[in-house]
């Protein structure tokens, strides 16, 4: 007992360990820096006066700071409707996606589910083949979903890739948990919502993050299904701002009267405006990545 309570001696680290740690930290630090500097530059550019940017393209601390680029962004009327649309799409889409994921994945973990293999094959089929743009457009039109935000939410609501991850995760949970609940008199619904669902929070947080980021960044479905500009999501508005139309017209051998090319700093501020809100979501979900796979249960 006495020996057990003694504080263990610190293991002395050898030169090899220190060298490996030094190299590891250096490489990881440099890599982190390489990832971070472009984003830092985008933020700094967005606050830099244009004349200073012209004089020095790589100034990490300009002499003066300005909000001019943000004022220009805010003048775009569709920025605000874009924000509203994107928040709706991301929130409703993510919640809906998580609900459908759980409700679909859990039954597929049941080996006695009739037609389980066929259902899974049908799901996997959609990973490799899609109906194509035009048939999907006709489908949306026949469902009366053109020019609605639902057309941007529903097609991506339940992806097969996420479904496989979710199913595998649930299959990896200790079976004894479910057995114990069933012995205690719980039915399948109660098992799902009281036992399985709480244990799925880490995977839900992870997939939820992927989904919300996916919806936040989505724009192509709006190009196809939205004919009114007030239905555009934020990313589409942003894409329009940073786009240079002159290049496209030159490729088509057309002669444009004017080129629609936004100033560089406007592009930078647009990127900040479009990415900062979704970045704010990460810290709240980060802890779930660190959490263990099993939050509680019985010993095997």
């Amino acid at each position, binding site marked *: 007992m006495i020996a057990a309570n003694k504080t263990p001696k610190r293991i002395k680290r050898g030169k090899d360990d220190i060298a490996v740690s030094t190299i590891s930290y250096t490489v990881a630090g440099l890599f982190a820096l390489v990832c971070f500097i472009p984003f830092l530059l985008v933020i700094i550019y967005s606050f830099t006066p244009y004349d200073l940017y012209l004089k020095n393209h790589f100034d990490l601390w300009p002499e003066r700071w300005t909000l001019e680029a943000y004022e220009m962004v805010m*003048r775009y009327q569709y920025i605000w409707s874009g924000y509203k649309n994107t928040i709706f799409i991301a929130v409703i889409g993510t919640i809906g996606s998580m609900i459908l994921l759980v409700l679909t994945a859990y039954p597929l973990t049941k080996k006695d589910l009739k037609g389980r293999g066929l259902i899974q094959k049908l799901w996997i089929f959609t990973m490799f083949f899609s109906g194509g743009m035009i048939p999907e457009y006709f489908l949306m039109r026949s469902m009366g979903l053109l020019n609605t935000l639902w057309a941007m939410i529903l097609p991506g609501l339940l992806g097969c890739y996420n479904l496989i991850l979710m199913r595998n995760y649930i299959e990896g949970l200790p079976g004894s948990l479910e057995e114990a609940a069933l012995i205690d008199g719980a039915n399948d619904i109660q098992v799902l919502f009281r036992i399985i669902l709480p244990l799925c929070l880490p995977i839900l947080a992870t997939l939820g993050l992927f989904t919300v980021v996916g919806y936040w960044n989505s724009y192509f479905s709006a190009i196809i299904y939205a004919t009114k500009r007030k239905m555009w999501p934020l990313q*589409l508005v942003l894409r*329009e701002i940073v786009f240079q139309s002159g290049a496209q017209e030159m490729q088509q051998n*057309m002669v444009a009267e004017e080129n629609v090319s936004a100033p560089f700093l406007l592009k930078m501020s647009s990127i900040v405006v479009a990415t900062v809100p979704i970045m704010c979501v990460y810290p709240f979900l980060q802890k779930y990545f660190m959490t263990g796979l099993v939050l509680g249960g019985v010993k095997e």
Partner: protein
Amino acid sequence: MKKTFALVLAVMLVLTALPMMTAGAEGERVTLTMLQRLPAAYVVEDNPVIEAWGDLLGFDIEIEAPPISSFNDRRNIIMASGELPDIMYVGDTGTNYVQWATDGLFLNLTPYFNDEYLPNPVRVLTEDELSTVRIASLDGDIYSLPRVQTKPWDNIMYRKDWLDALNLEVPKTPAEFAQVALAFATQDPDGNGENDTYGWALSLAMGPEHRQMLSGFGVRPSEVPDENGVYTHMYNQPAYMEYLDWLRDMYATGAMDPEFYLITMYEDDDWFYAGELGIKYCNTVTEHMITVKNNETFKAANPNAQLVAGAPLMKEGESVANVYYNPQVWGNYAINADTEYLTEALHFLNMGYTDEVNELLMFGVEGITYTEFNAETRSATKTEEQKLNADKYVASYATINYQLEDKGLLIANGDTAEDVALFTEAYNYVGALTNRVSYLSGGSLPGISDVNVAITDEGIDTTFEELRTKYICGQIEREELVSFLENTWAPAVQPILDIYAANNWNAAK
């Protein structure tokens, strides 16, 4: 009795209500739907200019404006779905356009292209311009009308303060240009004591053959025969090699930015604004011409900077620059073959070719987007608020046509009388030194694209581009490039020249 009385009352009610209902239906305005390509800042909903446009035409206009960056995707889906709006900005005069017209999606405008239905386009459009929308495989009929761009004077902008500092004049010939460029690169024109300036930057992103430069050497487009009726590809003309020699010399002396090969689209604009370049050539974009907008950008970075517009380069000993222009078409508009509102759609297109509609779409509504409009100079003064409104409600992209007869609907840049005067002076100066030589592009002639595909497949064009760049940079000798042009390039493009000859293409130009 009661039933009869009730019946009589009901009949009377219907009879009295009927005229009112009919009157209501007659009073309702037709709504014409339209697909249009518009920039991101343009606000479609509750746009007072679109409302005024509808009032002018006598019907409402409902515009679908897909993202400008993905316009073609959306347009293609509309075409595939078969649910076309009444009016379509097609933005294509090539294969897609021909196919859609062949499929019967567009109305054949030829029967309507007369003084009864489309008098304004008939008056405005030249046969050269119409040739861009005629479909040879459909009896040469017209299935859309071209939006012809303002006839611009391609120009070259110079730093006037640098010219003044070095006692130099605006150059007119290639030799003078090279001299000025070298002086800008070597004589510290900004007076900061540092060797940090270049004369100019050749932008390959904007295409290596710039009209306003080639004019200084007398290079003809491949589609244009010489005085003996012989077609020679542009690259095989002796004058083209003189042009490359000229570039090579400027590269060697340092007059030209040595990093020209890496310039991306519009990147040289930034360098010019930053005060690193003293010369900037401007292709087709009228806005570039010595505008106040550019001046404002300059003033921020270079408070003492001044700009001056120069003409395209002219051959030694000539008094004007002969610049070759094919029809300057900026997209085209078609009518849905199944439109319910044919009369309105024709009226819509017809009115699009008037000053009235052009000015409305470009300048907007008095009091909202401008204070005062000067019809003579085609310019408007604006308050700060009106400038912001103008960004939302008007755009050159919204126009149906851009030029009237041979005059050109010049829209003067600038928001004040002083700005407009500056622009107009530059425009007139450049125009006086430019002789426009019109010709037709031959790219749509049958067989041309097949030859071009073969040239690309064999890598001949990429080899030429590589050799050309190496030659400009002094990495290969002249003989090597000339040998390639004579022995490889010329035989490869001969079928194209044969097609031009067989069609007597541009023979009268």
